[in-house]
């Protein structure tokens, strides 16, 4: 540990973020969310509550979803992190992103990145969830706009497409 410009304790952390290695000096009390948003410009993780209750800041860390507002940056040292920006190369969208567009699963969009990442983590673990399992999988992500139905439809669409592709 050492001290940063403002005198607070800092720590050097290294992470793989969306496939790129990142090394940063961060104050020990900073959250992963603020490092992603402020230092790395990855604004797709949104701050809806800052206290781990809404899921708008969801990112995937070592294969599991976390609320980035609840992870202190030093905890992310050595971690592999996927944010919404890591899901598409800008040209081709991830199948979940395509499906969210097709099903109209987005209104204000504030919850959307977190929702898509939770869906991705779910499908990575369980490629053919039932509708109820989909609902469970996204139950940590609040959405005030959509009533969730078109979101569930979108995720189910990806499940069905994957199954068709296999058949």
């Amino acid at each position, binding site marked *: 540990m050492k001290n940063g410009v403002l005198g607070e304790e800092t720590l050097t952390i290294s992470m793989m973020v969306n496939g790129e290695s990142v090394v940063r000096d961060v104050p020990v009390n900073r959250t992963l969310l603020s490092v992603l948003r402020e230092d790395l410009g990855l604004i797709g993780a949104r701050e809806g509550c800052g206290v781990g209750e809404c899921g708008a800041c969801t990112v995937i860390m070592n294969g599991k979803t976390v609320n980035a507002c609840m992870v202190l940056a030093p905890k992310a040292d050595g971690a592999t992190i996927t944010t919404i920006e890591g899901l598409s190369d800008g040209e081709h969208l991830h199948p979940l992103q395509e499906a969210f*567009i097709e099903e109209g699963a987005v209104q*204000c969009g*504030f919850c959307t990145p977190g929702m*898509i990442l939770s869906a991705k983590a779910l499908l990575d673990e369980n490629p053919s969830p039932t509708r109820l399992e989909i609902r469970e999988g996204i139950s940590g992500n609040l959405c005030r*706009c959509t*009533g969730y139905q078109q979101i569930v439809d979108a995720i189910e669409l990806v499940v069905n497409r994957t199954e068709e592709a296999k058949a």
Partner: protein
Amino acid sequence: MKNRVVGERVARIGIRDKVTGHARYAADLEIKNALVLKVFRSPVAHGRVKKVMTEKAAALEGVAGVFTAADIPGENLYGIINRDQTVLASEKVRFVGDPVALVAAETEEIAEAALKAIEAEITPLPALFDPADAMAPDAPAIHEKGNILFTRKVARGDIEKGFADSDLIIEETYETRMLEHAYLEPEAGVAYRDETGCVVLLVTTQNPHADHAQLVPILNVAPDRLRVIQTETGGGFGGKLDISVQPFLALAAYLLKRPVRMVYSREESFMASAKRHPLKIRMKTGASREGKLLAMESEITADTGAYGSYGIAVATRSAVHATGPYNVPNVSVISRAVYTNNNWCGAMRGFGVPQIAIAHESQMDKLAQRLGLDPITFRLKNAFENGSVTPTGQRLEASVGIRETLKKIRPYYQTFRKEIEANPSRRYDGVRHGVGVASMWYGIGNTGHPNPSSAQMEVDRDGVVTLYTGAADIGQGSDTVLVQIAAETLGLPYERIRLVRADTTLTTDAGATSASRQTYISGRAVQEAALEIKRILTEKAAGLLKVPANMVACEDGVFFPQFREFQKIPFEEVARAGLKKGEKIRGEGVFNPETTSLDPETGQGTPYSTYAYASQVSLVAVDEVTGQVTVKRTVSAHDVGKAVNPANVEGQIFSGVAMGIGMGLFEQFYPNKTKSFDTYLIPTAMDMPEITPIIIEVPEPTGPFGAKGVGEPALIPTAPAILNAVHDATGRWVHQIPADLETIRELISEQEGG
């Protein structure tokens, strides 16, 4: 001719940026060297401000400024309907959270430290938390003019005779709770002064033009010295109609001449923003033996909290809609909005109508039960139709789809009923099932006030078409719908229209994104602007094609004579013909639906030019042990006039049902206590049933392509349908929401006890 764009499920404008995370909300805007703003808020509910000591805070290193009421260059007063709110308290504070001082600092941490260094001497005054206390003759006055903000009366027919003629009269008191909008994006914005010194605000808002109108007198600047631009907005539901961070941003940027930013924490958003008015409703309804409604009398009290905000609108709307969508010849309603020292209440999806619908729909089911009629038959016996006269004396001439909505849900009602009856365990095995119905009507636009919208369109020499609208898309999808309307009118592909929206310098006032009015009112304004362009271009095309103008059509961006379709001219060629460099073709549209103000004594008049209608059926399961109510299925039928974008309409229906479930079953905001989603529970995906949306299109002649609105109607029938289903399941009526675990357990034990 078939519509090509209107009625299609086109993808929303901006959706790609939202799914990739690139959309920028106000908190995501990068602004160099911005100062961080924070507000010092009153710790007491009611008090006289003696002294605010800011010297210590101002002396801290990194603090750029600390402001109090004395620093406001113009009027320290605002309010969307009645002006009663201060930017920074000067004499009094009226709720816990009232802003007292504003800090601008280099960092978040310094701003926090500065807040701690501020001392305010506030002499507490007796605080009032119940409207009944506030209306008492000797109650201390929260505002100078007294504690009753507004009274609305609606009177029609002979109420006494109506009850005397009734064979059956039901009277009950209903109570609803204070609710929080809980949009996922907290209030946020940035502001700076541009090269000319103009203060520019980029802010999450539902109405940039109203923000502008309220901020100009606060800053005391010429209107063109302030510009408000709406950023991508993460939901509003009425909660972003009032100004929040705007005056702080404007003030600090103006006085300090530095860029500033302000983002509310969730806790501050809960504390500082408007809430849904809790209503206490006494309602007495009379009907004949044959099942005709004869009389309805109601007394409504709305707690508007510390400030007026939209309280007047809520008092009026709840009164005007109090019968529900039914013919009732004799009506008497008195509705009051009352000040207390609770959080101030304002607009929230439906302006009092979701609350009053709980009363009128419970009354309907009680009457139906006593009359031995099923709830749909009873509603159909009384529902409005063309030619019906509303309690304000308005004759409904067109687009009255209530009967259609009831007929469409009937088969589902019967199926759910049969399912329960065929399966006795669904009644008695500790989890009781029930089915409930509710209907609603909702006036589109502001109540009894002119509420015009305007729009402009331009076509340049390259055939680039730009639509200018002041309408704020807050996630509900007005951008998409307005562009669809423009594209359909012009015969252009949807993608060809550029949109400039919600910027007070570039666009004209479209009115608020509220009252479910943008599709209907701004949509019609856009249609008018597009028709103007179409007229000009059609004439030009007629000249080029050498045929009369009434023979010319345009489809998919190509003009052609209707009888010689092979003779085609592309849109851009027609646009270019005869245009000099820099010249543009312009069209302007204005629409102001016909309304009249309501008579102060009787409420008679035309509050809205059109109404939306809906009916909903819900199947619920009530766990007798835990008291938990689970909504299993919901079918929701909405007469929207015309679904310009059916996917958006369905999205609104799903959304409204979700908010209605929260309202009916668990949401409750406790002033000064509720601080987070930990105690303010909103529905998750697990709380939601599968919903079947049914779109009914009874066209509204004055609407664009027949469209009305759906944003608020979607919510309104939900909670009442659930409460009626709970009664069906348990035999007990719920008279106050939320019907949470304790309420239900108590109801059931009462039943067993007696």
